[in-house]
C-alpha cells in the first residue's frame, strides 16, 4: 500500500510528464481557474481535491483538450514518459492513444452491447480490433462481467456501467490516466476494489491524475495532493508535507461514559473543534501547541472517559479547515447546475 503520509515524496518532478503553467479560465459569471500551476511526475498518483466549484473539473477538461484555457500553457511528455532528454519533445495536446480519460459526467451509448462499446473506445485509442476485442474480454472477465459482454449497456446495473466506463478509459493501457470522480456511485466494497485497480494501473506503468471528493481513498492512494479552492492551489505536496505545513495539532478520539453536548467540549481551552465520531465517541481537534494532558484533564472534569486514541489529523479535517470558510451547501454536494462550460 502506498502510504504518502509516512515518508517523503517518492516522485521526481525534474521532468514532469505533464506541466501546466498559469492556466486561467473565465466563464461568463465566474473565474473557474486562476493562474494554476500543476506538474505531474511520471508514475505518480496525483490527487486533485477541492469543494465543488474549486476548478477541478475545469482543470481536467483543459488538460484533456475539451476546454481551451484563456491563458497559460500545458505541455505533455507522454510519449517519452518523462525520461531525461524528453523536455524538448513536449507537445501542447496529448496524443489520445497515450491518454485515458474517465469524465465526471459518465455516459455510454445505451443500446449497444458492452463488448462492442469497449472495442470502439479501444480502437479509437489506437488498438487494432483483434487486440481490443481480446483485451476487452479479459478485462470483463476480471471485473466479473464476462457473461454480460453481449448484453446492451442499459441492461447493466449502474455500478456495472461504471465498471464498463472505467474499462473504456484504460483498456489501451494509457501513459496518463485522468480519472474524474472514479469512485462516485460505488458501494464501499467496490470503492476498495477500485483503489486496488488504480494502484494496479499505476504499477503497470500509468501515471494517474485523480479528481475526487473521497478523502479517505485519496489518503490511501495519492502520492501527492493538490488542494484547490476557487480556482487556485491552496495546498500542495504529500500528505505528510501538507500536515507539516498546516501545523495542525493532535487529534484525540474519546470514548465517553455518557453523552455530552459537543458545544461543551469545543468550549474547552486547547480544543479547536469537537465532532461526533460514533456512539458516545467524539473527535477533538486540538489547537497547535495545546497540551494533551491538560485537555484530557479538563474533559474528565466534565465526563467520564473510557478510552483515548490519538492520531494525526485526517485529510478530511485538513480539507475542511483549509477551505472550510463558510462553505455553501452546494459546494459540498454534487453540482446540478446546467451547462458543462459553467461547471468546474
Amino acid at each position, binding site marked *: 500500500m502506498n502510504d504518502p503520509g509516512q515518508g517523503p515524496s517518492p516522485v521526481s518532478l525534474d521532468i514532469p510528464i505533464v506541466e501546466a503553467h498559469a492556466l486561467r479560465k473565465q466563464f461568463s459569471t465566474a473565474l473557474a481557474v486562476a493562474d494554476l500551476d500543476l506538474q505531474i511526475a511520471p508514475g505518480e498518483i496525483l490527487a486533485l481535491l477541492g469543494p465543488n466549484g474549486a476548478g477541478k473539473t475545469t482543470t481536467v*477538461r483543459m488538460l*484533456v*483538450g*475539451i476546454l481551451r484555457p484563456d491563458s497559460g500553457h500545458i505541455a505533455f511528455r507522454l510519449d517519452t514518459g518523462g525520461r531525461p532528454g524528453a523536455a524538448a519533445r513536449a507537445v501542447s495536446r496529448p496524443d*489520445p492513444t497515450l*491518454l485515458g*480519460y474517465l*469524465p465526471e*459526467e*459518465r*455516459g*455510454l*451509448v*445505451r*443500446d*449497444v452491447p458492452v463488448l*462492442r462499446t469497449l472495442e*470502439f*473506445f479501444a*480502437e*479509437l*485509442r489506437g488498438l487494432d480490433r483483434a487486440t481490443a476485442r481480446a483485451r476487452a474480454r479479459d478485462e470483463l472477465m476480471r471485473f466479473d462481467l464476462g457473461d454480460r459482454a453481449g448484453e446492451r449497456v442499459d441492461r447493466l446495473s449502474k455500478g456495472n456501467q461504471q465498471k464498463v*466506463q472505467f474499462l*473504456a*478509459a484504460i483498456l489501451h493501457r494509457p501513459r496518463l490516466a485522468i480519472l474524474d470522480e472514479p469512485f462516485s456511485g460505488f458501494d464501499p466494497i467496490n470503492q476498495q476494489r477500485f483503489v486496488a485497480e488504480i494502484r494496479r494501473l499505476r504499477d503497470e506503468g500509468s501515471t494517474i491524475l485523480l479528481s475526487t471528493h473521497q478523502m479517505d481513498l485519496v489518503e490511501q492512494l495519492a502520492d501527492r495532493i493538490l488542494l484547490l479552492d476557487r480556482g487556485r492551489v491552496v495546498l500542495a505536496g504529500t500528505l505528510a508535507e501538507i500536515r507539516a505545513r498546516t501545523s495542525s495539532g493532535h487529534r484525540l478520539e474519546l470514548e465517553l461514559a455518557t453523552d455530552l453536548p459537543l458545544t461543551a467540549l469545543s468550549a474547552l481551552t486547547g480544543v479547536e473543534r469537537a465532532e461526533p465520531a460514533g456512539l458516545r465517541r467524539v473527535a477533538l481537534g486540538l489547537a497547535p501547541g495545546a497540551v494533551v494532558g491538560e485537555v484530557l484533564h479538563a474533559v474528565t472534569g466534565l465526563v467520564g472517559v473510557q478510552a483515548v486514541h490519538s492520531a494525526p489529523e485526517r485529510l478530511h479535517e485538513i480539507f475542511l479547515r483549509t477551505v472550510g470558510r463558510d462553505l455553501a451547501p452546494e459546494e459540498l454536494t454534487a453540482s446540478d*447546475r*446546467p*451547462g*458543462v*462550460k459553467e461547471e468546474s
Partner: protein
Amino acid sequence: MIGRRAWAVARWEFLRFAKAKDFLVTLLVTAAIYGGVQLLGDFARGRSAEPRTVAVVADGRLDLDSPLELAPFRFLPEPRGLAAADSLVVAGALDAVIAPLDGDWQLRVARERGWQELLRVQFGALARQNELQRLQLDPDVLAMLNTPPAIATVLIGPGAAERKQRPGTVVVIVVIGAMLLGLFTGFGYVFVAITAEKTQRTTESLLSILSPQEWIDGKIAGLTGVVLVSLLNYLAAWFLWQAVSWRFFGGSVALPSGLGSLDLVWSCLFAAAGFAFWFTLFALVAATIDDPNSSGRSALMFLPFIPLGVVFAGLDTPDAGWMRTLALLPGVSPSAMPVRILRGDPAAWEIALSFGLLLAGALALRWAAGRVFGASMLMTGKEPGLREIWRWLREK
C-alpha cells in the same frame, strides 16, 4: 479525406443502426406491401372493368339492334322510349341514356361524373362510324377514313441517333421518392444519434479522443451508409415481390424503360452527395438542440423537404429557367438535377457545375458543422443562439 478514427466512428454508427434482423423484417414487410398494393390495384381495376350500361333511344338515327360492348361501356338498344329508359336510370338500373335532341344527341344521367367525358367520345365515334356506314362507301375508303394518320418522332440535330429515350413520369417520381425516403430515414437516424448522445453524456469521452470534425465526419459517413443500405433494401424488396409475382401469378418482370445507366449513376451520385449535404446540416442543428421533446429547432430539420416539393412542380418543364437555376443550388440540386437529367436536356457543363457546387457546399457545411458541433455538443441546459454560433464559426 477522413482519417482512421473517423472511419472507426463511421463503422460504429453503421453497426449501431444497420441491424441485419431489422433489414430482413423490412425487406419482407416491404415486399408484402408492394404485393398488397399491386393486388389491391388489380382488384380495383377488375371492379372498374364492369361495363357501364347506357341505353340508346335511337329513334332511327343509329343502327343498333343488339347490345354493343365498347369498353368500358355497354350500349343497349331501348325500343320502349325515353320515359322507360329515364325511369331505369333514376332507379339505378342503368348508368345513362343517350337520345336524339334536334339534330344532335343528348346524354341523360342522374348526376354528372368524370366517366361521362369518355362516354361522349366513345359514343361520338360510334355515331360517326354509323353515319359513314350508312353512306355505303367502298370498304377501302372506309378503312382509310377510320385510320388516323401516324405521326412518328424524328430526332434531328447533331448526335440525334445517340440521344436517349426519356423515362416516364413514374420513374422520375420513384427517383425523387427514393430521395425523399432517404432524407426521412436519415433525418431520423441523425436526430436520434446526436440528441441521444447529448442526453446520454457520451460527449466528453469522445471529445477527449476525437476532434469534433472527425466525430461529425464519421457520423455522416456511417449514417449515409445506413440510409443507402436502407434504400437498397427497399429496392431488393421490389425485386423480391416481382420474383414472387412471376413465380406464382405468371407474367413478366416490369422494368422501367428509358432509364439509362449513366442517368442512374448521376442520380446516385447526386443522391449520395445530397444526403451528405443535408445530413451534415441535420447534425449541425441536432447538436444545438438541448431537449428534443421541446426544442423548436426540430422544425428546421424539415427544411430539405421544401426543395423536393418544389422540384415536383418542374417535372414537365425540366429545362425551364427556374429549374436550371434550382439545379445549380447546393441542397436543391440533389433533387432538381436528376429531374433535369432524366426528363430534360442539361448540358454536360451544367451537370458538372451543379455537382461541383454541391460538393463545395457540402464541404463548407462540413467545416461549419465541425465548429458548431464541438462547442454545442458540450452545452447542456440551454441552446446556443445565432450570435453564439456565429462566434464559434469565426473563432480560430
